[in-house]
């Protein structure tokens, strides 16, 4: 009886305690996003009156990345620098070169604790649907309020993003469905893709705001 319990415990650890799910995304990936994919297509975006008002007051100095504020989510979903993906027992790590951004995708069924504050990266949980990784990110921040083209993001308590990642040989593709009912009548979708780069490198990305480029 005792040995049976040990075997069951080991099985539970192996089956439920690992994030290495149905598909292998581990390794370094370089961006291969077609131009413009990082911004919502204008003809697919339906701004609310509040969203339209924000769009009209956009000025370059509201671009967060020019102040060396990391893009976060959703702006940083389609990121222009390499990333490394690491599987751990309870989480998948998305390690971005850009601004040293680290995303922890919790895969063990946990939910955001009550004390978790809104942040640029939010709080991400993941689950597998076959070979597709579905990431849901909540607790986003109003500080990450702008797409650089001027499309707003409220970052209020009603915002969340659902990503779907899948691999086809050496290509990793994803969609990000952005829910922001304060500023958009309907959710909009951005797309991105990465190419497997086993010899790729993740470099240091220090950032100096004085060189943001606004003069």
């Amino acid at each position, binding site marked *: 009886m005792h040995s049976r319990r040990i075997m069951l415990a080991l099985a539970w650890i192996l089956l439920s305690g690992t994030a290495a799910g149905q598909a292998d995304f581990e390794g370094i990936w370089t961006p291969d996003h077609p131009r413009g994919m990082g911004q919502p297509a204008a003809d697919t975006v339906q701004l609310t009156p509040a969203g339209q008002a924000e769009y009209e007051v956009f000025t370059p100095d509201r*671009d967060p990345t*020019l102040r060396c504020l990391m893009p976060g989510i959703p702006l940083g979903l389609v990121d222009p620098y390499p990333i490394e993906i690491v599987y751990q027992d309870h989480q998948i790590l998305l390690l971005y070169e850009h601004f040293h951004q680290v995303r922890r995708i919790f895969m063990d069924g946990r939910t955001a604790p009550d004390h978790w504050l809104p942040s640029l990266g939010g709080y991400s949980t993941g689950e597998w649907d076959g070979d597709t990784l579905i990431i849901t990110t909540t607790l986003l921040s109003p500080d990450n309020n702008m797409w650089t*083209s*001027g499309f707003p993001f409220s970052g209020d308590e009603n915002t969340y993003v659902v990503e779907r990642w899948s691999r086809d040989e050496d290509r990793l593709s994803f969609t990000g469905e952005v829910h922001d009912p304060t500023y958009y009548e309907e959710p909009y979708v951005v797309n991105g893709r990465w190419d497997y780069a086993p010899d790729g490198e993740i470099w240091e*990305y220090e950032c*100096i705001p004085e*060189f943001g*480029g*606004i003069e």
Partner: protein
Amino acid sequence: MKKVMRKAMRKHRIVVLFAALGIFIGLPVAAHHSGVTYFDVEAEIVQHDATVVEYVIVNPHGRLVYTFTDEAGNEQEWSGELASANNLRRRGLGGEVFKPGDKLVTVTGSPSRSGANFMRLTRVDFENGDVAQLTGANAGITRAGE
């Protein structure tokens, strides 16, 4: 300003459309920013006989500082915005490319909308025939004779 030439580029309909959407055309591959917000990408400035003052390779954007003499005989100092340090280095445009005192035959770019002595650099031609392409998919250094 000596041989400063500013010319309006042809307004392709698609460029106008994308500009209206706030999408930068011809930006460095990895730029996240909407360049049309900050620079008049439909205009081009070509400055001649410049001298490098400083090449700063930092994120989020590198910077080339240079001087040249305008038509009135006054020395002007300008700054040119570049891609990020990481992108410059990946494209072979690291710190060895520009040194203080280097002579540049032409410096080409898109002017800042602010009117400052500042532009988004697209290309630099060196005295020895080397060419630094600074934006687009072909960004990199081409040595004379290659």
